[in-house]
Structure formats: structure tokens, C-alpha cells
């Protein structure tokens, strides 16, 4: 290990150390002054973000090729860190008023983010597995953070059991890939595949197993069933964090591993991806129709969005569109992340103790009574539907363009049709907000308003410069060993 090795993982190392420091500080901090921890966490995240951005443009590998650094990782790391900051802002007041402000929250959040960054930079399958667990275990705890609310405990337990279950599949997959190539380092596996010494059957079975495990993390159908239950039970800021950052991390590892290791298996894997993408779009959108709880509705919406993302990933083996696929997926992750976090901010603002204030009916009259909050929610719903003049539109547009360019017109049409269905449930919220009389109760909190208005402004204003955004994501290329 040398200093240059450490430089490659500086944001991760810093986040970890900072989390440990926070744990220590927490020991000496009186209960009523936990707010300081939140600010310190934000400070740490901001510093890590700065360290991460300072790395942009650099690439290379470290720790004997165990981790790599590329613009892809820099981009996604920034996404996780910003997600962490937003989750903090959402939780600042929420944790207090829901009486669950405990110091561990902040350390766990940082641990999970460190895990995500490690997952994105991992260049070794064992490290991939470790990082996957590292990001998940704090999340299991965070999901149950609203203890002793039964819902939250159930969410944590379900998430943990199913997560452990799917991790086993990842491990199986890794074992099979190792069996096929006698290598667990991505570089080594690529070498083995290139030289033709890999056993294709093993490799395929391993790839499928990995797909199952990662499919769980991104909540793709049919591995999605945990998502609505867990999203509903978890504290809302955690849910928002899971919906954005965990999903992004899942896609990050999916992209890195499949694009690097298995482009040769595209002929046998593409039909599987096709089916999963189509199912995810259809089931996610259809199930969202029937929801009356906003958290569940957004959970299904996040499933459906995973479907759109997967749609662009289907032609991953096609070298001509793979680059386009990555940049459009990263663009979508950004657009989706901003939009979703904004929507979750509104949800947090309306949520009352004991899980009240979460049905769609509770949004009646929001538009006229709280114009700012109403308009921001309107923008988020339009963006999720994919209406022009929002970032969501461009996101979908780029994804569809990738699918069409790769010749998957059928998938694009499924995507469009399911988007029509999604218009129904997204706009239903708008209808309820603006066209039904009601007395919504809203928690006024500066940080929440900042998140809601900030993300809404970003969603609208960034949509004016989609080119620059796309160029940004296009620069976030994968480092190919």
C-alpha cells in the first residue's frame, strides 16, 4: 500500500474515518444536542464530495488492481454523496419530531455511502461482495430505525432476510465465475475471457446468478417485492435515500461488471435482460395504479423507473450503443434522483406521527393552500411522467433513443405504453392536490423547503441545457482494464 493507492480511495477512506469519529463524538454528546452531529455529517459529506470532485479526470487502479478510479466512479460517488446530503436535510427535522434522533443514524448513513463508493470502484469480485454487504447492513439497520414502530421493524427484518438471501446468489455467482475463469479479479476474468480459457457455461450461469443478486438491489421485477414493504416501513428520509442512492449503486455495479466481464455473453443474456426490463416496466407501473399510500406509490414508481433504466441496458453487448447506454443511464439516474428526492421531501413535509398523512387523500387541497409546495410537487410528478420542460423528459428521451438505436423498438413501445399508465397515477396526485378541497397539514421546515425548491428548480432549469448534462454523463466513461 502506498500513498498513491490511498489517494485513489481518498473519499471512501475519509468518509469511513469521519463516520468513526462521529461515533466517538456521539458518546460525549448530550441527547438534546444531536443536531450538531447532523451538521458535522453534512460537513464530512461536503468534504468527501470535494475530494471526489477533485479526482475527476483521473483514472487508474490501486491496491494491486483491487480498486479502480475512473470518471464513472467519480460521477456516481458524487451522486451518492449528494444523496447523503439531501437525506440529511430531509431527516434533520423529521428525526426529531418522530422521536428517533439517535447518533448512530449519521454514522450508519456514512458507512452505507462508503460501501456504495467502494462498490462502484471495486475491481475484484470479492471486494464487490464485501462492498455490497457493507452498503446493505447499515441500510438494514436504518430501515428499522423507526423502532418500536412495528412497520419499521417488519421492513428491517424483511429487507435483511431477503437481502441476505440475494447476497447468497451474488456469492454463488462469484463462485461460478471464479470456477469458470480461475480468477476473481475483474482484470483477470477479462483476460481469461479474452484468451478463450473461460468455460462459457459456467460463466453464463455465474452471470445469471449475479444478475439475480443485483436485480434485487435495483428492485427489478421479479426481485422487487421487498421494495414497497420496505419503502413504506422505513423512515421516509431513509426511503428516499434507498430509492436514489441504493438504486444508483446497484446500477453502477451492474454496469461495471456486465459491461466489463460479460459482453461476450450478450446473446444469451440479452433475452433475460429484455424480459426483466419489460416485466419491470409493466408490473411496476400497473401495481402503482392501485396504491393509495404515497410511499407505496413512489416505491412502485421507483420499480418502474428501474425498468426504464434496464431498457437502455438491454443492448449492453452492442459496442456501438454501449457508450450511449451508459451516458443515458447516468443521465436518467441524475434526473430521477433529483426528481424523486424532491417528491420525498414533499412526502416528509406532510407526514405526521404514527404514519398518518401518507394517503393520497391527505394531499387534497395542497396546491391552493401551500402554493410553493404544490408547484414543486407538480413539477416532480410531471418530471416523473416525462413531460417536456422537465429533466425527466430528457431522461426518458435519451433512454428511449438508446433502445431504438439498438433496434429494440418493441421495448421502447412497451416503455411508452407503460408511461401512459404512469401518467394516470402521477397526475392523479396533481388532480387531488389541486382539484379536491382539503385541509392538508404541512410541517414547515426550512431544510425541507430548500430541498423541495432546490430540486424543483434543478429539474426545470437543467432541462434547458440537456446537452451540457448529457456531455457531462458521456464523459463519465468506464475505465476498461
Amino acid at each position, binding site marked *: 500500500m502506498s500513498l498513491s493507492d490511498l489517494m485513489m480511495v481518498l473519499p471512501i477512506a475519509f468518509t469511513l474515518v469521519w463516520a468513526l469519529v462521529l461515533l466517538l463524538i456521539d458518546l460525549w454528546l448530550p441527547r438534546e444536542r444531536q443536531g450538531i452531529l447532523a451538521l458535522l455529517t453534512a460537513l464530512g459529506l461536503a468534504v468527501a464530495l470535494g475530494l471526489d470532485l477533485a479526482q475527476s479526470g483521473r483514472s487508474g487502479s490501486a491496491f494491486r488492481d483491487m480498486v479502480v478510479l475512473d470518471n464513472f466512479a467519480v460521477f456516481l460517488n458524487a451522486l451518492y454523496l449528494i444523496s447523503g446530503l439531501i437525506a440529511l436535510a430531509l431527516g434533520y427535522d423529521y428525526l426529531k419530531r418522530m422521536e428517533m434522533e439517535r447518533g448512530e443514524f449519521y454514522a450508519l448513513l456514512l458507512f452505507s455511502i462508503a460501501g456504495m463508493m467502494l462498490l462502484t470502484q471495486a475491481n475484484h469480485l470479492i471486494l464487490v461482495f464485501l462492498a455490497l454487504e457493507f452498503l446493505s447492513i447499515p441500510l438494514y439497520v436504518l430501515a428499522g430505525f423507526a423502532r418500536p414502530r412495528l412497520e419499521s421493524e417488519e421492513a428491517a427484518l424483511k429487507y435483511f432476510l*431477503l437481502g441476505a438471501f440475494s447476497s447468497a446468489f451474488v456469492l*454463488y455467482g462469484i463462485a461460478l465465475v471464479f470456477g469458470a475463469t480461475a480468477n476473481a479479479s475483474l482484470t483477470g476474468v477479462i483476460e481469461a475471457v479474452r484468451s478463450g480459457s473461460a468455460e462459457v457455461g459456467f460463466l453464463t450461469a455465474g452471470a*445469471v446468478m449475479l444478475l*439475480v443478486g443485483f436485480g434485487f438491489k435495483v428492485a427489478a421485477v421479479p426481485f422487487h*417485492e421487498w421494495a414497497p414493504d420496505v419503502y413504506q416501513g422505513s423512515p421516509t428520509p431513509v426511503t428516499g435515500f434507498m430509492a436514489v442512492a441504493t438504486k444508483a449503486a446497484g446500477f453502477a455495479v451492474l454496469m461495471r461488471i456486465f459491461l466489463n466481464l460479460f459482453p461476450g455473453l450478450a446473446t444469451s443474456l440479452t433475452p433475460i435482460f429484455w424480459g426483466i426490463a419489460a416485466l419491470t416496466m409493466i408490473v411496476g407501473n400497473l401495481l402503482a395504479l*392501485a396504491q393509495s399510500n404515497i410511499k407505496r406509490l413512489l416505491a412502485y414508481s421507483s420499480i418502474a423507473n428501474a425498468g426504464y433504466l434496464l431498457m437502455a441496458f438491454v443492448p449492453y453487448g452492442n459496442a456501438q450503443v454501449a457508450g450511449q447506454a451508459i451516458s443515458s443511464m447516468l443521465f436518467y439516474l441524475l434526473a430521477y434522483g433529483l426528481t424523486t428526492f424532491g417528491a420525498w421531501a414533499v412526502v416528509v413535509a406532510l407526514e405526521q406521527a404514527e404514519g398518518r398523512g401518507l394517503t393520497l387523500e391527505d394531499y387534497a387541497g395542497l396546491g391552493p393552500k401551500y402554493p410553493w409546495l404544490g408547484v414543486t410537487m407538480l413539477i416532480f410528478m410531471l418530471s416523473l411522467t416525462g413531460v417536456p420542460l422537465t429533466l425527466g423528459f430528457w431522461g426518458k428521451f435519451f433512454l428511449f433513443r438508446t433502445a431504438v438505436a439498438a433496434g429494440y423498438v418493441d421495448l421502447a413501445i412497451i416503455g411508452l405504453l407503460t408511461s401512459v399508465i404512469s401518467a394516470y397515477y402521477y397526475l392523479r396526485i396533481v388532480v387531488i392536490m389541486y382539484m379536491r378541497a382539503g385541509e392538508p397539514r404541512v410541517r414547515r421546515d426550512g431544510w425541507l423547503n430548500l430541498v423541495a425548491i432546490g430540486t424543483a428548480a434543478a429539474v426545470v432549469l437543467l432541462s434547458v441545457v440537456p446537452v451540457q448534462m*448529457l456531455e457531462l454523463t458521456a464523459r463519465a466513461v468506464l475505465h476498461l482494464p
Partner: protein
Amino acid sequence: MLVIILSGFIFAVFIPWLYRRFGARSGWLFALLPLGWLFYLAGQAPLVLGQGQAIEEHIPWVPSLGVELAFRLDGLGMLFALLVTGIGALVIIYGGGYLSGHPYQGRFFLLITLFMVAMLGVVLSDHLLLLFVFWELTSITSFLLIGFEHQRYGARAAAWQALLVTAGGGLALLAGLVLLSQVAGSGLISVINQNGAAIRSSSLYTAALLLILIGAFTKSAQFPFHFWLPNAMVAPTPVSAYLHSATMVKAGVFLLARLTPALAGTSLWQALVSSVGFMTLLVGALLALGQRDLKRLLAYTTVGALGTMTFLLGLGGDLAIKAAVVYILAHAFYKGALFLVAGAVDHSTGTRDIERLGNLASILPWVTLAALLAGISMAGLPPALGFLAKELFFESLMESTWPHYLSLGGAILAGAITFVVAALVAFKPFWGRTQDVPHPPHPVSVEFWLGPVILSGLGLVVGIMPALATPLIQGAVQSILQSSLKVKLALWHGITPVLGFSLLTLGLGGLGWAFYRRLWQGGEIWRKLAPWGPARLYEVGLNGLRRFAAWQTRVLQNGYLRFYVMTIVLTTVLLTGFTLLSRLAWLGVGGWGDIRFYEFVVVVLMIAAAVVIPRLRSRLATVATMGMIGYGLVLIYLIYSAPDLAMVQFAIETLTVILFVLAVYRLPKFTRLTPSPTRFLDLLVAIGGGMLMTALVLIVTARPLVPHISDYFAQNSLLLANGRNVVNVILVDFRGLDTLGEITVLALAGIGVYALVRLTLGRLMVYFEGLEEEEEAEHERAL
């Protein structure tokens, strides 16, 4: 033109503020903006219409994708832009009076201005994507305007319906436009229109055409998507006049006209567009029978008129296109005016029921004048523009390849019904006996009659002097046909068959008017047929979708963890099993070794335990039996001389059983075992999962692995680490860091346990005491 769009959006931002400042009178102020645009556009007319030059503006937006803010003002765009701005100004003035005192009047001004900008965007865009953006904006503003009176359930439902139909169609349109630009290699409409032949011969032509047509048909309320338009009449009347008659619903027709050079001319286009148009023309006319509401009557005839335009565009050819353009102009004049008239009547009397209205001429003189002028045009009487449009329509039918008895018969029938409706709407409320109305009619202010009088007057003036509008019509026709066709219009064609058809229509119409009550009773039949109409299909479809979603939620998302696990296992088995089976060739597993007696016994015991477990009703027994499987595994490890593994497994197994027993012995027995069919399914899943794992293990073990690392340790422990005990060397040297890590983990865990014990011991005692008390209480209750 970007200036127009931008100024509109910027102006819209200030509307709420201006409205607060100037109140209801601000309608006059807000009308200045579209009037300004109107004059600006008219200033371009000599260039665009006189010299046939299109004005273009290109501002790069997404250059890497070839998306730019491209605007183009040609003859067709000019016609629509003038209509949008002109009628827009009148409608805004009208809204100032009509919605005076309404709590949401400010919102009306804001939304209608936004809509106007969006509609101008649609007609001025030269890029498909830009056009689509504005297209969806019109759908959204239309949705908000229909739901204007959102306290009423009907308004919400209608707004909803209109949005789902038009925005849904809009997405189909997007797909079609993307395909079209793929085929043409450009998103610029002017470029696409020059490559018509290449597009029509492309293999994607059919798909692109169908998708685009769905978009256009839903927007323009063509059969079978026509039902949303009459329902949209819950919107305030100025909205109906503007969006649902004069402009927005014509967007579909506009799109068809716009893409005519690229898409039209094939037999598919002709068959589809003209037959859908013809159906709509008939359906709109027939459904008007039996309606008693002024606005619904006008709405159904609007559907019919839109059908006529689509029909003409479908027929194609110089004459039909000319007829379509004249029809668009005539319809915008008379229908816009009549809607505004209906609003004035409604405002004055409080009802729109034609049976209850009468003798309003003396109270509403100007409105009556407007109604009469517009009515003449709608009925197709000379010398109004409507007459001219109808003549041209008949003429192009004569030329078409459609069987004449069918097309002309339909056209004459629809024309006759339109005549009756025109009489009912424009004549009946103003003459005859005074009828009972909710409140005594009051005169209306200038805002109410200014718009209708101007519009209907224009219809008459242009009818008498067609030369006034000829450049406009010629410009539009030329840009649709992309030719330099000269248009000449005249009211009097001489004595031709067409004149005969016109007279026949008028005669039939007059007859219908005389017996309109009987005719209208016949129209009652639609009410009975409604359950089989496409509106019903929409309703059933929507409800079905909702119910399907609810059912799916119950099935797929039942909250049971075991079900989720089963889904994952099943999917994995299917996916991996599929891969394994598709490569059966390498499933070659090496020969079996000798099976020893002990192994046999142990395995049989384990299998027996596995079979027994699901049938047990006691949790304790289940745990014990599971332990049997674990200990069997221990034995197998021992037999294969792996004592270290055996020890670990033994320890874990024991610990698990103890933990289970501790947790489980308080729980009741399994009382409800799942029914047999479910259990059978579970069995299948379990067998599948087990087989998959077995296969994987067999395959993996059959493969020679990398050389053992143990050799390396054995050889190098003395050499590198000076240690004779290999295990010791591994622990403290080769894997020293691992050991350090493990020690740290153990230490941390120890601290954690210590903390937990100290913290919770006290609370735990309390908890157990409480539990005991509860139990005692329960016991006493049982006694």
C-alpha cells in the same frame, strides 16, 4: 418567432400580479399581447403569402442530437397562427366579462395565455420534438382549463378523460415522430417534407404512420376517440370556444396537413385517414340528434366538422386540400362565434337548454346579430363562407374515388343535421315565445358580443368577398401541397350538380327543422345505445385496469416474506436452469466413487428428516429434525476426513438448535398448515431449487481447480517465516492481518455485548416481570 414564444411565457409570469392590480377589467389588457402578435404576424404576410417564402429561425438546443429550436412560418403556419392569436384576443376579452367575479378568473387568464403560447408553438415549430413539446403543453393546459370548475365531480372526470385520451395519444405520437425522424434522418419538418418518397417506401413507414395518426386522431376527437370532446364542455364557455372548437382540437388536423407532403399519398393513408374522417363526420352529426344543451350540440357538430376536415385531408388532391383549408377557416369563424353566443345566453338566462330558451332577441340584440350571421355560415347558406366551404366539399367528393352515393349521401345527411342544429342554436333561442328560464334574462356587456360579432362578421365578409382571404388560403394550400397552385374562390359557381346537392341539403335540413321535435325524440336512442359506445369502452378499460392492478397487488404483493423468497428462488431456478439446460453438453459429471455403507445410512437419514419436516406440527420437533440434517452433514465431513469443517459445522449446528429452541418454545404449535395444492406448488419450487443447487455443486466439484495454496504454505513456512508449525505460521504471519482483524472484531463484539448487557439488564428484568404478571392475569381470567 422565438420572441413570440418567449414573450408569451414571460408575460404569463406577470399575469397573476397584473390581475391583482387591474381586476376583472384586465381582460382588455391581456388581449393586447395576442393582438400585438397578430399585427406582427400580419406584418410578415406580404413576405410569406405574397412571395411564398417561409421565415425560418434556428437556434441550436441539443446539437449533438440535431435538436434545435427551429421555427418556420409558412402559409399553413400563418393561417393557424392568425386564427390562434386573433380568436385568442377575442376570447380573452370575452373571458373578462364572462368570468367576472369568478374566484379563479386570474387563473383563467394565466392558463389561456399559456395555452395560446403552446398552440402557437405547435403551429410554428419546424422540429418534430419541439412540436411534440408544445403539443403536450396544450394537452396539459387543456386539462387544467376543463377542470376549471374543479369543485364539481363532472369537471374533474371530464378533465381527466380528456387528458388521458389526448396525452396518451400524444405519447403514441412521440413514438411515431421518433420513428419518422429515424427514417428521414432529420427532425426538421421542412427536411422531412422534402423526403416524402423515401419515407413512404421505408419499412418503418406503416408503424410511424399508425402511431402519428393515433396522436392526431385523439387530439382532434376522431372516431372512436371522439367522446372526450362533448364531455369537455364542462369547461367555461370561452375555453370551449377557443380550445375545443377553434384551435386545440384542430391541432390533429394541423399535424395531418403539416405532414401531408411526407406521409400522404399512399393507399394506407387514404384508406385510414379518409374513412376515419368519414366515420367521425357521420358520428358527430348523428350524435347531435337528441341533444338539448347548446354547448353539447355545438360540440357534436364540432366533432362532425373535424371529421370533415380529416376526411378531406385523407382524400388528398388539390381540390380536397383547398376545401379542407376553407373549411378550417369557415369553421373557426362560425363555431367560435356560436360558442361565445351560447356562453352569453347562458350567462344572461342561467340555462343552455334549447327547450327553455326563447325570445332573447330584444334583450340581447348584438348577440342575436352575431348568432344569425354565424348560423347562416354554419347552415351552409349563401353568402357566408360556410356555403363556400360546403360547395368545395361536395365538389371534391365528386372528384374522389369513393363511391358517390356513400360519400355524398353521408355528406348531405350530415349537412342537413348541421342545418337543423344551426337553426336550433342560432335561431330558436332568440325568437318565438318566451320560455321559462332560471332567472329573468339580463342584457350583457360589450365584452360578450364583441367577439362573436367580429368572428361571424368576418365569416360573412369573406364569404361575400373571398378575394380578401384568398392569399391566406392559397398560402396554406401551397405549403400543404408544396406546389405553387393558384387558388381562386368564388361564391357563385354557376348551375352545377354541386349546387343541386347544396339545395338538397338545405331542403332536407329545412324539413328536419320543421319536424325537429320528432327527430330529437328519435335521438333518444343514443342514450340507450351509450353502454355500447367507445366512451363505455374507455370506462370499462380504465376500471378494468384499476381492478387488474388491485388484483395483481393482492397476488404479487401479499406481504408474506415466504412468498417473496419463493418468487426469487423460482426465477433463479428458471433463469439459471435455462442456461444450464441450454448447455447440457458440459453437464458431464465425472464417474461416481464407491458409495460406502455409512454414507448411505447418513444420507438416507438426512433425506428422511427433510421429508418429515414439512409434516410436523410442533416447532420444537421441527428444529430438532433440522438439527438432524445438520449433524448428518457433520458426519459426512468426518467420513471425508475434514475434521476441522466437521467441528465448525457441529458447533454452528448446536448453537442454532439451542437458539431456535430458546426462541421457539414460547410460540404455539403450527395450527394452520397451508392447503395441499399450495403445498404441492411449494414442493415443486423446493425440488427445483434443490436440484439447481445440486447440479451446480456437482458441476463445480467436477472441475479441476487451481493448484492448492496449502502446498505453498507447507513449502515456505520454514523458509520465509522460520516456523515449523504451518498452522501457527499461517495465523500469525501469512495471514497476520486477517488475524489482527478478527481479534479486533471479537474485541469490538465483546465491548458491544458488554454494553448491551449493562444497558438492558435492568430493563429486561422489568420486561420479564411484566410478562409474568400478564401471564398470571391471563391464567386467572381463564379460570
